[in-house]
């Protein structure tokens, strides 16, 4: 199994989710994140004092998949999250040793 992690623009979350559902992914974990890469933040002014805000809001999408599906899932995420402009985000995968479904105690691919 592999864990696919994607950090994408918040307004692309619906597109990514729809594309993953269409592909057949059953679930995902979404969390709010902030950070920066090549895209930098913006400037804010409070009573004349200027601040640069470098951290850009993003969402992190995490999906557990079988090894065979991982390249496809990555591609689905990349296609659905892409705008072609700077700050589109990153997608990466890491191997996962085991997964347990808490309700039933099932292990491995059965727990996906």
């Amino acid at each position: 199994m592999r864990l696919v992690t994607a950090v994408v623009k918040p307004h692309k979350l619906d597109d990514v989710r729809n594309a993953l559902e269409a592909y057949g992914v059953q679930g995902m974990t979404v969390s709010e994140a902030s950070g920066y890469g090549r895209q930098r933040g913006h400037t804010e002014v409070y009573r004349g004092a200027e601040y640069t805000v470098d951290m850009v809001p993003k969402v992190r999408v995490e999906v557990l998949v079988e090894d065979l599906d991982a390249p496809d899932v990555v591609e689905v995420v990349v296609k659905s999250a892409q705008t072609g402009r700077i700050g589109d985000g990153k997608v990466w995968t890491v191997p996962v040793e085991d997964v347990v479904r808490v309700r039933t105690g099932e292990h491995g691919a059965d727990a996906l």
Partner: protein
Amino acid sequence: MDTGDTAWVLASAALVLLMTPGLALFYGGMVRAKSVLNMMMMSFGALAVVGVLWVLWGYSIAFGDDLVGGLVGDPLQFAGLNGLIGVHDGTTPGHAAGEAEHLVGTVPAVVFAGFQGTFAMVTVALVSGAIADRARFGAWLVFAGLWMTLVYAPVAHWSFAFDGLVAEEGGWLAGLGVVDFAGGTVVEINSGAAGLALALVLGRRLGFGRDPMRPHNLPLVMLGAGLLWFGWFGFNAGSALGANGVAAVAWINTMVAGATAVFGWLLVERLRDGHATSLGAASGAVAGLVAVTPACSALNPVGAMVLGLVAGALCAAAIGLKHRFGYDDSLDVVGVHLVGGLWGTIAIGLLATADAPAGVDGLLFGGGFGQLGKQLLAAVAVLGYSFVVTLALGLLLEKTIGFRIHPDDELAGIDQVEHAETAYDLATTGAGARMPGSRPAGTTSPTRTPTHDTEVTP
């Protein structure tokens, strides 16, 4: 006794009281999330301390018989509002049952005392904006009581105690014919100068000028500014001490000066920083209200518009002073209240028209330099007195009981150290908080043991 006047001043007093919680929101939103509670507690602390001490001796210092040269009233004369609470029982001809025996103007003396007490509360609270994030709460409470007694009440005597209003002989500035209708000197210059002094005594916040100290909640700031504006109608129009034409003029001038000051502040921001900000709109409204406070009975509405517009622009420019000179007046008590108060007090000498209830002409209305000179004198006198006495008081407290919190506590956040609270718990995990005694007991889960460790170690 006039029941209409009494009803209006009672309502005005309640409006002014609401300004202090409004100020708590205004200031609270401007600090970082780790110190919002302490910021708001300084306002609520002022409500509590001044609410008691004003009745015990503050009112008497301000409005009792003059002791010497128009400088201070007799603190014992009305101590505890002694002798003021009598009410007619209906047996005295010409007085209905329930009418107060002691009046100030046409309203019960106790109503007047309460109304004035709400001014003292908000003025003390205003000072706290200069020392955000770093003042020991206990020391602040002591300061609030001492400052009200030694600075606020005497200065209120100077400007608000007219000869014959309560005592036969009143304060020296009021006697000179200085126009300060609702507190440009007593409230605004006074709190602004005190804020500057305390900011110097306590020193800069850790990381001032280096770390970002963005306002953590601008909607709170705007709600607070709105409540301040609402309460300011009681502050200014209530100071007519009657439901009459004077109150009407003060009311309308309070509306328009706040409005044009929003424009003045936003215009400066747009030109200087490129954007009109919500913090600027809230600050601008307050700056205009500050400036019109002494002047609302002396201007026509167009004059009040000009006064407000200049106040907004001037204060927007003045908030940069602290960065230039390096003092940490955290929430711009100097930039808004001192500068706005100076402008409003002095501008009466320029923009006043005898058509308005105060009945004086300023320089631009052919009144010459006479009124301008009196206004300048009052502004400088209150600025100097407040700054010097506050500086001495602040240093005394810092050297004896300690005024500033420990640097470690300041970094951790004053809320958790001084009040044992955090303002916001937005996380679903409750920030990991748990009740004492709620540690897991009798659980069936496997427990990590040394034996277990040795078994799994290869």
